[in-house]
């Protein structure tokens, strides 16, 4: 790890100002993704701006129609939250499947969403639920937020402050863990709303994506059988030493069915 300066601002504008004024500086939330890259000398930012002292970035609130989770809320807190378990049990379940206990205690929803790892779990929940990413400067709809392989709509200096989730009728997540990393080899989030069903897939390609044919079929009939015959195209799906593209395509259908099952149970 190369030396760096360390800042621990107390207010969001201060953090944003540091971020824009120190070139190549980085925000650090749980550090679960960032610190290993520093240790391996893959990144060497001159300064880290720690978000842990910022006010109002932690905690979970609800206003009936939406549940809002502060960016600095760790995965373990979301998984154990009575509120999330009652309103969006599929999301609590998703959080409980991330990594291991140590990772869930340190890792945050803001960090995960900002990082947009193609095999991370939260992006499937955020896109599947059609959530809104709230930042230091604006609100971004999930559909416009994720831009593929570690890319997001975040501008330089922009800080995620919270994620706002609409409360669905039903939602479920099914994850096929990659054998070694236990990130999602394929993870599918399914959510049923008054105006239809959303299906979001992580792990299978270079970034989280929706599956319109499954959404249409499930909007007609919210049952696993409705999508059993829908196979997604292998174009754009990842092939690596763990899984070939056609296997991933197959798993999308299997995990989508299991996600619907989870939502119904």
């Amino acid at each position, binding site marked *: 790890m190369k030396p760096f300066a360390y800042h621990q601002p107390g207010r969001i504008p201060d953090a944003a100002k540091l971020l824009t004024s120190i070139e190549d500086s980085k925000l650090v939330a749980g550090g679960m993704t960032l610190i290993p890259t520093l240790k391996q000398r893959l990144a060497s930012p001159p300064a880290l701006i720690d978000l842990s002292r910022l006010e109002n970035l932690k905690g979970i609130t609800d206003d009936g129609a939406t549940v809002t989770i502060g960016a600095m809320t760790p995965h373990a807190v979301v998984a154990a939250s009575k509120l999330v378990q009652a309103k969006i049990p599929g999301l609590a379940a998703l959080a409980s499947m991330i990594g291991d206990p140590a990772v869930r205690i340190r890792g945050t929803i803001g960090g995960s969403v900002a990082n947009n790892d193609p095999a991370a779990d939260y992006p499937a929940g955020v896109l599947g639920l059609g959530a809104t990413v709230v930042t230091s400067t604006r609100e971004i709809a999930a559909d416009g937020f994720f831009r593929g392989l570690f890319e997001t709509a975040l501008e330089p200096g922009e800080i995620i402050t919270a994620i706002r989730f609409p409360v669905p009728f039903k939602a479920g997540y099914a994850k096929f863990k990659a*054998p070694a990393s236990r990130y999602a080899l394929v993870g599918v989030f399914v959510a049923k709303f008054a105006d239809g069903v959303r299906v979001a897939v992580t792990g299978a390609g270079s970034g989280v994506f929706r599956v319109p044919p499954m959404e249409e079929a499930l909007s007609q009939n919210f049952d696993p059988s409705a999508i059993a015959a829908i196979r997604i195209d292998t174009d754009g799906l990842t092939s690596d030493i*763990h*899984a070939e593209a056609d*296997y991933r395509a197959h798993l999308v259908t299997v995990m989508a069915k299991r996600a619907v099952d989870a939502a119904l149970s």
Partner: protein
Amino acid sequence: MGNVIGIGASPKRKEDQRFLTGRGNYVSDIKRPGMTAGVFVRSPHGHAILRGIDKGAALASPGVIAVLTGEDVAADKLGSLPCGWGISDAKGVPMKEPPFPMLAQGKVRFVGDMVAFVVAETPEQANAAAELMTVNYEVLPSVVGVLEAVRPGAPQLFDDVPNNICCDWELGDKAAVETAFRKAVHVAKLSLVNNRLIGNPMEPRAAIAEYEPGTDRFTLWTTSQFPHVVRFLMGALVLNIPQHKLRVVAPDVGGGFGVKQFHYGEEAVITWAAKRVMRPIKWVASRSEGYVSDRHGRDHVTEAELALDETGKFLAFRVNTLANMGGYLSTFGPNIPTNLYGPLLGGVYTTPAIYCNVKVVFTNTVPVDAYRGAGRPEATFVLERIVDVAAAEMGIDRVEIRRRNMIPKEAYPYQTPVLVQYDSGDPMGCLDGALVAADVKNFGIRKADSARRGKFRGLGYSTYVEACGLAPSRFAGRLGARGGLYESATVRVHPTGQVTVMIGTHNHGQGHETTFAQIVSEKLGVSFENVDIVFGDTDRVQFGMGTYGSRSLVVGGAALSKATDKVVAKGKKIAAHLLEAAEVDIQFEAGKFSVAGTDRMKTFEEIAGAAYVPHDYPLEVLEPGLEEQAYYDPVNFTYPGGCHIAEVEVDPETGTVTLVDYTAVDDVGTVINPMIVEGQLHGGIVQGVGQALYENAVYDEGSGQLLSGSLMDYCMPRADHMPMMKIATHSTLCTHTPMGVKGCGEVGTIGSPAAVINAVVDALSHLGVTHVDMPATPNRIWRLLQNASLPVAAE
């Protein structure tokens, strides 16, 4: 007489006190005054010509003390890293043994090959400087697979090793096998891959070297399973340091599994560099560095054929294997897929004729060497797989075909057609015990239950034997060993009766400090707490060959047992004098020397006291002091074995294999500490399950890049992969080791892969699946099911 805890007891492990309270002393815990930091610059290419190395920027970087390359090694006329075994082909032509320079010279041959060593004041400065090194590589195509490496036109690693073949080795009577095949009613055939593995000990490798000008002595602290062997190989053959001027210390070592039983170039470089910079140097490998430099294991491609008569009796077995050696010959490299493989192909069966050909092949990969089991898991896998294939093809039950061919208990000692003679064993007894423990008779009920849940359930057997307790030196010498394989122990009885043992084996997780203390406690009648075991320091321990090949208890324990016998013998002489009796009348039991048939006696402590305060002592005929040493060279290998039964459930929708039950009934001879034996079995089985279901070192053909280069991509088995295991022993005693022990360190890893894969194939056999390569990953199973179910769907 205190607290004797002897053979057969399961005290908690002595060493865990320090391990569990964070007081272990590992190499990276050690700090020396004025210590500097070393970092290796490694090749990012699988195969390249070194066109030049520019040290300039690195040397000018802050804190840098030295930058050394292969040219400096050559200028100092240092030796090549030695190979401890020299094998030959059928005509007696020795293997090709190209030099293995400690820092690459002329060419690099695998990703991770070392090209330079940077020494700086701090690790940070050394790392920063290493990044500034400019190495001019002319990249060549890499070849990583054995099949590809022997093909005409393949990239050649060495100018004088045509077709990359190091040795074309064979064993057995080829003509007899051919004759038997002509008479066969059925021939079963099997092609398989034994997947390449990475050891992943919890503690990465590390070393510290220091040179003391005042005494002209070197000290190397290293994560090694065999410090005396490192002293010999490195001192005598690489660096030309006289043995008495070199101390090698292997303190607490956090797991080895074979990975740490080789002499590594890093050890030689750092020791050599310590004198050049006149400062101690520390190097600690990162996990990623370990992936591209720790020796890998297995990596075979094999074709096997089994000839049978109409009753399913095995007539002959023929095996052709290509074994990957990686880019250079490591310490034991060529011995593993030959001498530790071919002789095991008889298994527990009476197969009268066996022939084995192994082509040992160089590729642009990390050198391959021994990894827990080393050769025997590969042999067991080939044999136990093909037995199942033959059974299925001939319509004979898998247990029944094994019974028909098993060596009966009464037939021991049993001479196999492939060199080894088994001294004792009862494979049928292990099988019978395992069938009951695994509740095989109710398997049908469990299979039906799985089917109701849409899952396929399978049961797999592995009835196996292995050869360990390495090794009888004379025998090993005939096979090509360039060193001895005995062990030594010194038993030092202090004047107050406590005991310190100096032993040449190395404890890095096996519980030696406990097991060996139990042996001494039992044999000398002293308290378990009053025995300490010292190992891992060439200045404190007389000599030793170290720990590998399940040899510590078998060979080291035998030396220890003999040394305690010598202590007792001397104690009897002292007691005879003190008790004014004839030596033949002195009995030693439960820590007391007594005159037979009387109540006159002396305690062990009293005798020790008399030996060190020899006022009333037969000084004319006996030396004072009570310390004895023994060297023990085994007369044969030992042959632990047993029966493992795996039960798996396959989810056909995802291809996921779940191990739902595991039973092992093993014959490990005398059990000193049942808890430790069970622990060794647990760990060994988990490693075998890892090979069968999860682990795979994958290289990219052409570039030679390691694609599974971290724990994110190399899947280690984890606690939640495992069911509760049923472990039992069914022991026959080894007839030639002093205590009847056979060794248990590797049996789990040797027996299990075949059991697991046989279970997976059984689960899928109704779909026409006859073989699954390891690891049986979900993707691989799904692919098989796709191919298998096509004709079914077409019906």
